[in-house]
């Protein structure tokens, strides 16, 4: 067994206290408008979220962070941290993401300490960086010697796991329906990883406009259980 496997289980576990359980990233707007209301409509939304958003943002950021780490290019990491943060135009999504990133940095520093992680944490503390979960995850996994394609697929999986659990609570769906969704999405994750690995870096940050507007509109959703 690869000796990083158990560490990855731990990092991908939705019990990792990052605060991801309180963010829906626009899903709650669709739930309130009754556009997402059952297993099928959520599955469609989730596939869109992976292929229209995650691959161009977090997914490509994982790859770019991995490549920068391989070259020991810390400057590139800080540039990427800023670019991916300011790329998120909806305020709640942006702030939710860097709050999760900061929490993950704190946990990562405690559990798997390393000089670059501690520098990243220091930079977020004094306002020179934001903290992005895709970058933090990649940093931790890289020092555990996890290969790039495994980093990509496990990061995507952990994000999807969090969203699916939120959908189970928010729509609501049955626990078993949630598990079927997590099985069925695995194909999309595999395709997404292949796509990210050959993607032109000029595609970085492309957004799905309808999703983005829903993330903005969430600021005006009155009764809500999620912060984004």
């Amino acid at each position: 067994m690869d000796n990083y496997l158990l560490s990855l289980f731990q990092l991908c576990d939705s019990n990792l206290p990052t605060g991801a359980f309180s963010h829906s990233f626009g899903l709650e707007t669709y739930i309130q408008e009754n556009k997402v209301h059952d297993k099928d409509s959520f599955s469609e939304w989730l596939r869109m979220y992976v292929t229209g958003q995650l691959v161009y943002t977090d997914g490509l950021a994982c790859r770019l962070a991995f490549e920068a780490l391989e070259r020991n290019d810390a400057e590139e990491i800080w540039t990427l941290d800023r670019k991916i943060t300011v790329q998120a135009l909806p305020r709640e999504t942006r702030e939710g993401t860097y709050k999760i990133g900061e929490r993950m940095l704190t946990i990562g520093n405690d559990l798997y300490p390393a000089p670059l992680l501690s520098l990243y944490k220091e930079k977020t503390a004094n306002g020179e960086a934001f903290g992005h979960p895709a970058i933090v995850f990649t940093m931790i996994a890289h020092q555990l010697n996890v290969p790039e394609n495994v980093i990509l697929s496990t990061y995507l999986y952990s994000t999807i796991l969090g969203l699916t659990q939120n959908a189970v609570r928010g729509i609501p769906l049955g626990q078993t329906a949630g598990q079927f969704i997590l099985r069925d999405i695995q194909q999309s994750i595999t395709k997404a990883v292949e796509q990210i690995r050959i993607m032109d870096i000029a595609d970085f940050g492309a957004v799905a406009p309808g999703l983005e507007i829903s993330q903005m509109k969430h600021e005006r959703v009155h009764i809500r259980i999620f912060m984004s």
Partner: protein
Amino acid sequence: MRLSMEKKRDKTVTKQVYFQGAFKMLRPHYLDNSGQACYFLINPGGGYVDGDRYRMEITLEEQAELILTTQSATKVYRTPHTPVLQENEIILKKGSVLEYIPDPLIAYRDAKYKQNTIIRMERGATLFYSDILTPGWSPDGEWFRYDLLQLKNEIYLDEKLIMFDHLKLQPDEAGVDGIGYMEGYTHLGSMIVMSEQVNEDVLQRLYSVIGKDLDECKAGLSLLIEGGFTLRILAHSTQKIEELMAACSSFLRKEWYDRDPVALRKY
């Protein structure tokens, strides 16, 4: 095309203007007595075709105020090989105000268009920037399907990147009408407003200005990390998007400068 403007006494005047190729410009107008200049860009005669490349550089010196618009819609025709490339660089010095209000971009069948805009602002400058992307319409009433519209905006405030916006629309890709993408709408409008005066309170009030007109469209407003906000709109017509954007900019012009709405008489 290169244009720089400066403030002389109470009036913004042309410091340098240069154009070659298809871009042309009319002489500056003054729409009111505020001293703010207004330039009309004249698009290439027939529209953009395969492999066309254009570059626009705008500089506003300190306190200069400019409205920049187009005389008509920008049309992108069939581009089977090389996408049309439009590059824009905008430099806004302290205290300057730029209102960039182009007509829509109309992309016809098989059109490919890429636009890269870099805006460098000093603190204290103000920007109103908009884009409207629309598909062309054929005589038999069908919307044309363009191949690609890809627009990127980068805004630097005192040399720090504070916003990166990337839209990439490929209508032939599966699911583009569906949830998360165009959601059944055909037209997409984006407006960016950068100013030290932007805050959550301004946004709340803008929402109440446009809130009653949000039928038949999907619109969202949100603050950037600092000094600005974006408005994004999906709709079925250019007119709808123009109305919402004009409502926002009119409200802010009144609020911040006590000026009347921009009235561009083009037709």
